[in-house]
């Protein structure tokens, strides 16, 4: 694409989603799913994507009745070539939501949990497993610690350990690349509220090419090829952000061998659909595989990491760890059911005793998904300084990553949550 774009930096992929003009009937269904009004074209005419507004979430793609939207980036052949190259360690970074959807293209019912089959199929294809649930656990450590720091700073005036600023409350989660771009393009004033923690995919890439290369895979960082396997089209955009070359910078600073041209932390991103195509191309039938173990240090994950794919999952995982860290006591009940379910905005208040300061605090959290329908009042409240919350989880897609724009298209499903009201398109 050679068109002039305004909201992309050099190196970033401008717009992952485009609309096939031949297939589009102009029915306006996509517009009703688009969180940013990025789809233009009058009712009855061929629609187009305004890439400057598009956050690449892919909801239009999985909900168009005519299958008109498509992904502009298809790395399947490139990944297949890397898998065939014996000198390259291809690391498959598997997001939580992939394991409950990758069975569908192989004829299994929706929601089948196929972690073991998926490991087996991917190892057969030549991937080394890095379960992104591992990186999700790592994200909780970083993002949870950051939240505790922000909360203690706001409540007790605690200073940062290494100096430097501490971000304001409420803290927004930053795992969802569509949400991050939504803030950057629509509410830049809220950038300080975003957790500075990278998304699990980007943490995984940076770790795989530094610690992983040196101590787990025992290869040179530049021969590690990281492939995000994501339920998400926006992850393809995220991986192209120029700041995500941190492993190269880090290796260079530490005096390690590094090629003169920087390499990205994540080399390629496959959506769940892409992975299914890749496996089918390699004649691997995932459904027929036996369960296998991940087999690397990076395949170790916890229940808190795996629920990242559900709306409310990041918050629940963070609350579990924050509770134990703040109170020093174990949880009597691990599940925080208040943040589960498909309600547009879920909130919860957790009262606990911060053992460091010896004081009771009530942590108020909110969980937002399907941002098209639900985010405006929440961000307006924060902008006006009236938000009652300390920590807000945001995922763009209805239901969270399990219904992401990169997931297999479900013929009997729609992302429309809540009441069904007719919407009479006109102009």
């Amino acid at each position: 694409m050679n068109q002039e774009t305004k909201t992309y930096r050099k190196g970033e992929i401008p717009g992952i989603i485009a609309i096939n003009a031949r297939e589009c009937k102009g029915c306006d269904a996509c517009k009703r799913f688009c969180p940013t009004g990025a789809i233009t074209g009058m009712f009855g005419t061929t629609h187009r994507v305004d890439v400057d507004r598009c956050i690449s979430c892919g909801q239009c793609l999985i909900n168009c009745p005519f299958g008109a939207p498509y992904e502009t980036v298809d790395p399947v052949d490139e990944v297949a070539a890397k898998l065939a190259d014996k000198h390259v360690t291809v690391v498959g970074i598997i997001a939580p939501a992939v394991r409950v959807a990758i069975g569908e293209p192989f004829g299994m019912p929706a929601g089948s949990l196929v972690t073991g089959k998926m490991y087996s199929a991917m190892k057969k294809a030549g991937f080394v497993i890095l379960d992104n649930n591992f990186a999700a656990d790592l994200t909780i450590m970083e993002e949870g610690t950051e939240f505790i720091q922000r909360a203690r700073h706001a409540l007790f005036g605690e200073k940062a350990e290494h100096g430097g600023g501490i971000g304001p409350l409420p803290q927004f989660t930053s795992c969802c690349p569509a949400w991050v771009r939504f803030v950057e393009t629509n509410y830049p004033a809220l950038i300080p509220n975003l957790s500075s923690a990278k998304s699990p995919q980007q943490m995984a890439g940076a770790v795989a090419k530094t610690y992983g290369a040196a101590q787990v895979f025992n290869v040179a960082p530049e021969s590690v090829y990281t492939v995000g396997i994501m339920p998400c089209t926006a992850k393809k955009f995220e991986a192209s952000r120029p700041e995500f070359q941190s492993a190269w910078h880090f290796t260079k600073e530490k005096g390690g061998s590094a090629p003169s041209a920087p390499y990205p932390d994540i080399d390629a991103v496959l959506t769940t659909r892409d992975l299914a195509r890749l496996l089918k191309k390699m004649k691997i039938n995932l459904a027929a595989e036996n369960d296998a173990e991940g087999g690397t240090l990076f395949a170790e994950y916890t229940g808190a990491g795996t629920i990242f794919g559900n709306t409310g999952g990041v918050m629940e995982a963070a609350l579990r760890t924050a509770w134990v860290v703040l109170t020093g006591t174990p949880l009597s009940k691990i599940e925080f059911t208040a943040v589960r379910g498909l309600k547009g905005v879920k909130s919860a208040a957790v009262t606990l005793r911060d053992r460091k300061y010896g004081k009771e605090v009530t942590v108020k959290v909110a969980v937002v998904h399907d941002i098209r329908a639900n985010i405006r009042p929440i961000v307006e409240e924060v902008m006006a300084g009236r938000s009652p919350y300390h920590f807000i989880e945001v995922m763009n897609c209805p239901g969270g990553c399990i219904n992401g724009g990169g997931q297999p298209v479900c013929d009997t499903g729609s992302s429309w949550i809540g009441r069904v009201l007719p919407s009479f398109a006109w102009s």
Partner: protein
Amino acid sequence: MTESSFILKHPLRVRVFHYLLAASFLTLAVTGIMLYFKLLAEPAMNTAMQVHVVAGVVLTMDALAFFFLAFDRVVLFTKRTFTFSGNDIKWFAVLGGYPQKILLHKKVDVPPMGKYNAGQKLFGICVLVGGTLLILSGWVLWALPHAVPHGAASMIGSIHLYASWVLILFLFVHLFLGIYMWDDFKAMFVDGRIPYEDAAEKAPLWVKNDLRRLG
């Protein structure tokens, strides 16, 4: 029977229904073809879609009104179009004698028909089934494409497309024969009457079984 006697074939409510049906369906067919082949530039395409939607609403209202106000005629029509006999097969074997008559100016023997000949019955079934499918699918595609599951929505789109092709193709035949049989055309669009002897020739069973003399 005197030569000047007439039969009231199409009562007023049928004629009003047919006026609205003809106007809205022709509009829908023309705008639908424009939309399908994307024949126009952007603002005009939008106008075509708006006209398509308005005509669709008119057609729906017309169909609903007839369904509720003239349910007896709907039932009668349904019964007649779905009632077949061996004569219908024989009718199709000679295509009602029309090609021979129109192209070769030759008269062939045609089996006796009721109010609707076999071709009209087939057309009637397509109108009943196809029309209903078009109306229902059209409303879903206009108002609910977001909420209906992906696969169902795409299937409904295909139904709308195929039903419209069938009806548009039939429409050409219907228009041609309608105008060709000028007495019937006048009956439907003007006063509802057809000459007795004309009906006795084309629909002898109807004239024999289903008529009542007035007065």
